[in-house]
Structures are given as C-alpha cells and as structure tokens.
C-alpha cells in the first residue's frame, strides 16, 4: 500500500516535472530564437528591450497606463516593438550592472536614477552618449537635465533625463498659514504648529544614512549658507561652518525644539509621507516624486497641501534636482535602436504627456507653456526649479561621499553631545584618505 503510494507520487512528480520543464523550455526557446532573428534582419520587426520599474499589467497605476500609451505611440511611429522588463525600482541599477558585467545585459536601454550616475560609471556599466548627443538638439533642454547627465569624473554624458524632480517644503495649510522663507522662520513655524497632544509634529525630513539627506537638505542648507560639500576634484570639503550650521539646525529641530518625529531616522520615506498625509506633520521636506501620492490623498485633493522652496539661511535655498533617466548599458547589443527611443522621449509632446503621469517636470523649456503646468502647485514647483536649483558638488564617488556626510548628520542628530566640528573634519579626512590618498 505504502509502496504503491510512493510510486504513484513519484510518477506524478515526474509527469509534472517534464511537462513544466519542456513546456516552459519551449516557449523560452521560441522567444530566444525570435529575438535572434529580429536582431539579424533589418527589414523585419525590431524589438527593443526596455528595463523599467512599472508593471504593465497593473491597470490601476496611472503611470503604467500612461507609459504603455507612450510605448504604443513609439511603436506606431518607428515600427520598433518594445519588450518591457520589470524590475523593482531600487534594484534596477544593480541588475543592470550585474548583467552588463557578464557581457550580456538583460536590456538594451534602461531607466536609471540619475543619482546613481557616478556609481554606474564607476562600475563601467554605461555607454558614453556624447556621440549620440551630437545629433540631438539640446538647445531647449533645461540646464539641470544636462548637468545631471554629466559624470564629473570625465565630463562625459551617460544619461538622458526624462523628467526632473526637485525638492521643496510641502506644508499643510491647516497647520501652517505662511510657508517659512528662512531658517529662523522655519524654527518658529515648526514650534508653533507642533502639537504633541494631538500627535502633530512641526517638521519632518527623511534622514537615513544614505545619500538622500544630503540631496534633500544638507546640500541646500549648506549652499544657502555659502558653503560647499565637495571640491572640484570630488574630494570632501564638508568640514566647514556652513555644513556645521546645517547639521546643527536639524539636530536642534529634533532635540532642542522637539518638532521632528523620531521616525525620520528609522522609517522608510513612505511612512513619513503617510504620516504627513494623515495630517500629523505640518511641514515636510520632500521631493516632487511624492507629488502623485500627495495630490491623490484626501488633504491634497482638498487643496490643503502646498509647495514652497526650501528655506535657506537667509532666503530660499538652492534645491537639488534629479530625475529618472535613460541609460544604455555599455555592452548593449542594440545601442542605435535604444537611441531611437531616447529621441522619441525628448520630443516636446511626449515630454508633456510623460510628465503628466510621472509627476516630474519636463526637460524642455517649451513644455512648461502647457496648461497642465499652470495649476495644482506646478507653477510653484516650476518656479522653484527655474529660480532656486543647484547641482550637487562634483563627487566622483557620489554615493560614498554623501553617505559619509549623512552618517555624521544622523549620528549628531541622535547624539548631540558629540563634537560636530571634529566629526566633520574626521569624516572628511577619512574620505579623502580612502579615495584621494595619492
């Protein structure tokens, strides 16, 4: 009895196994073969593999729906089919590097975050695009887009930005009447709107030890106070009084004025955003990539959330900008085809459509004339972008540098009894020793 059971189980397993393996093996062989043939033939359909983070089957996501329309438009125009590969947004770059290094990148063109530019180039993953840029009319590109595309280490361009995200002060008009325009106003406003009894915090900003705080506020605060984070060659220069003031401000907001929730230091970005959207934070320093969830929330829909520039020492601070960009893996098999997609994405009408569901602003100056960008806080955001943006210091080891500084920031905020000046100079020294020892 037991033996028969075992035999039948094994048989069943075998049958299932062989069906599964051969079944799937076949379909993949077919696609592999058809990909080969499309690559070789020139007059037949060409297929471009695009690596992105959205899920085309998610019809609830406005981004997916919008983007699929763009792809249809691209195929209609150029006859090139697009094969989409979905990878979680924070793993895209690592998958790109890994597969590229093996010699067989998994895509021909990929969406990458422009902040990862330095790391990607340092890993040899991207194709320099200067030759391609020659054929592109970049006269109407906003400056930020061209800056973001350039690697400070060799001055070459490796990306094409698709939309621009900036950062600013989102505030809840129920709790804040007038947005602060400088540091002392920021402190005052935060203290006034802070209400521990009702669980309301005056100010919040995502503060992990990755590069985000530097982009979000450390850079802007430092620059507004007249300082720099790095030197022209990419070595650390953050051991200066401006940076000290910046870090001190945040630490004070947390420890002295007690207006910052502790979750700024432990939680994910989205949890802080949720807290804000639930009406429990008066002012939130965050990027415009939070635009969509903000506008979809109850508070956002009732027009209670507004956008203002980041308060600097004496006025609006320069904000850091970045954006999702298109990059071509250095071992890409179809770079020319990939460039076709790039050309399509930077067309004015496509830029406008893309920004509508992306939340970031277009990279073409002319696009801002579209009616869409005249309402719903877009004017404030565009204004901030045009008048108050700055670029990050030219770090060749971008992530490592910013992480060192963010670590000091976080450490000091958690334990303000330490010697901030010494921490800054120690970390700068160490960073330079590690990367600029010669």
């Amino acid at each position, binding site marked *: 009895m037991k033996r028969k059971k075992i035999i039948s189980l094994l048989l069943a397993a075998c049958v299932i196994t062989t069906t599964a393996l051969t079944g799937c093996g076949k379909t993949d062989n077919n696609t592999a073969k058809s990909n080969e043939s499309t690559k070789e033939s020139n007059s037949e359909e060409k297929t471009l593999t695009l690596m992105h983070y959205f899920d085309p089957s998610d019809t609830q996501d406005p981004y997916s729906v919008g983007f699929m329309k763009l792809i249809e438009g691209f195929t209609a125009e150029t006859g090139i089919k697009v094969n989409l590969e979905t990878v979680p947004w924070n793993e895209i770059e690592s998958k790109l590097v890994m597969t590229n290094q093996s010699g067989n990148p998994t895509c021909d063109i990929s969406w990458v975050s422009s902040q990862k530019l330095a790391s990607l180039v340092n890993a040899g993953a991207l194709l320099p695009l200067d030759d391609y840029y020659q054929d592109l009319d970049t006269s109407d590109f906003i400056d930020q887009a061209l800056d973001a595309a350039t690697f400070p280490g060799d001055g070459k361009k490796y990306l094409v930005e698709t939309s621009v995200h900036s950062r600013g002060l989102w505030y809840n008009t129920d709790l804040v009447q007038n947005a602060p325009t400088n540091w002392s106003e920021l402190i005052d406003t935060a203290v006034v709107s802070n209400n521990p009894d009702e669980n309301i915090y005056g100010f919040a900003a995502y503060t992990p030890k990755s590069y985000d705080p530097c982009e979000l506020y450390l850079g802007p605060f430092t620059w507004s106070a007249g300082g720099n984070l790095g030197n022209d060659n990419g070595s650390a220069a953050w051991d200066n009084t401006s940076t000290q003031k910046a870090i001190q401000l945040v630490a004070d907001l947390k420890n002295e004025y007690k207006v910052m929730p502790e979750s700024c230091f432990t*939680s994910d970005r989205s949890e802080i955003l949720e807290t804000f959207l639930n009406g429990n934070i008066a002012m939130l320093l965050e990027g415009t990539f939070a635009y969509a969830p903000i506008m979809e929330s109850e508070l956002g829909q009732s027009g209670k959330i507004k956008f203002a520039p980041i308060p600097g020492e004496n006025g609006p601070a320069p904000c850091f900008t970045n954006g999702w960009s298109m990059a071509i893996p250095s071992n890409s098999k179809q770079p020319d085809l990939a460039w076709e997609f790039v050309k399509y994405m930077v067309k004015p009408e496509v830029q406008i459509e893309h920004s509508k569901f992306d939340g970031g602003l277009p990279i073409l100056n002319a696009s801002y004339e579209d009616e869409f960008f005249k309402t719903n806080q877009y004017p404030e955001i565009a204004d901030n972008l045009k008048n108050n943006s700055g670029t990050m210091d030219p770090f060749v080891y971008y992530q490592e540098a910013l992480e060192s500084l963010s670590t000091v920031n*976080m450490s000091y905020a958690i334990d303000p009894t330490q010697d901030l000046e010494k921490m800054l100079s120690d970390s700068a020294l160490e960073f330079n020793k590690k990367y600029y020892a010669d």
Partner: protein
Amino acid sequence: MKTNSKLPYIFIAPVALLLFLFSYLPMPYSAYLSFHKIDIATGKYVFAGLENWTRILRDKNFWESCSNTFWFALLYTVIMLILALIVALIINSKIKGASFYLTVMFIPWVISEVIVGYTWKWLLNPDYGVLNYLLGPFGIKASSLISETGYAMLGTVIVYVWRSLAYTAILILAGLQAVPNDCLEAASIDGCNKWKAFTKVIFPILSPTILIVTLLNIINAISQSGIILVLTKGGPVRATETLALYLYKEAFMNYQFSGAATMSIVLTVINLFIVTAYLYLNKKNREVIS
C-alpha cells in the same frame, strides 16, 4: 558498513557535480575580481594588484563592520543557545502541550526575511508601533531597539532569535534524545536534584550537539544580511552594519563587485576559521567525554 562497492561514488556524483559546477567553478572569478578593478574609460576590468585589499584594510568602516559582526554573532549565539536550551529541556520533559508549543514556535521560521524585517519594523515604529504602546506603561521604549545606536544591535538579535528559535531548539532537542533515560533515573534515585542531573548527566552528552548548533548559529549569523537590510539598513549610523551587510551594500548599492568579492573572501576565511575552531573543540570535547 560496506566497503567494496563502487555504488557510493555513483550516489554522490549528482550532488558533487552540481556543487562543482555551481559553487566551485565560479569561485576563481571571485578571486579574479578581488585583484582587478574597473577602468572607467573602457568599462572593463584591469589588473589592480593588491589595491582592493589595501583599500578595505585601510577602511575604518570595514573594521567597524567586522567588530559589529563579532558582537552580533556573540550576542546572537549566547541568547539563542540559552533560550533554545531552556525550550528544548522544557519540551523534553514532556509537559502538556509540548507539541503544540513546538509547532507554533516554528511559524516565524517559515516567513521570508523581507517580511520578517518589515513586520518587525512596523511593530517597532517610533510613532505608530504597537510595541511602544503596549510596553510604554512598563517604562520600556520598544522603538529604541531600532532607533538608538546602543540598542539597535540587541533589537536585530531579538528579531533573528525570534525567527530561528524553534529551529535551534529542535536541533538541541534532537541531541537530547541521545540522553538515555536510565541515566537520568539512576541520577534521581541517587538523590540528585534537577540542576545536578543537568550538569553531570545531560550536559556532557549534549555537548557535541551544543557545539555543532553553536557552529551553525555563528555561521548563519555571519552570513545573514536580509533581515538587517530591511530592519535597520545597517543603522542607525552603522550600529548594526555587519560584514555581510557591508558586502551587500558594496555590491548592490555601490556596484563595486571587486570590492564585494574581496570582502566575500574575507568572510569565507572567517568562516573557515570558525569551522576549524569547531573541529578542534569537538575533538577535545570527545576526549573529555570518553
């Protein structure tokens, strides 16, 4: 024991072949990577000599992560062993509901690391965490387990212990089965209390099991990065950044696979040391017992 057959080689062949192809063959690549670096201009690897090695040896963060790993492994192993031992002994004494307890304790082990990380992170949230709410009246601020540098290591260890307690307990329980009941009976007739019975009878027989469980625990603790990554990301401020996590970040955040390869070699060497220590102690232990 049969000695003459060729059968064992055939039996072992598939496993050995798979391991050879997928674990041993790629190994030289790691070594290769650790002596090369990417040349930005060409995007290809060029020989870099000992550059990767000197860089990590000069890196203060590397040494900090090693020390973190040491403390993590120590804390984890000690807490895990004590708890698992207690649990195993209790279950072994066949109290009511032993089987139920054991099954329930296994549930955390079935959950994937990512989920464990997020679940605990939400529990320990400083603003919305339910543990803060429940333990607050007792004067315990649960969220410091992920927000304060002094306690973060403990917090991580607790989560890991939560996940794998049942697993370790059952390994020790298995070892307990080897303690013959008549020895215990003889001891209780002789008038020993439970403590003496434990130290003189149970412990010596259990020691090989405890040794290997310790070994497995330490190696596991050292190679883990999944839960820490989600729970604290190595924070706050590097308090929980173990070598495994540092390695992961080097590979998946900085995309420096040569650096990561170098560190994985270091990790392997550390593991080998631990295994050697285990083999030595095991031998010594055997001599002591017999």
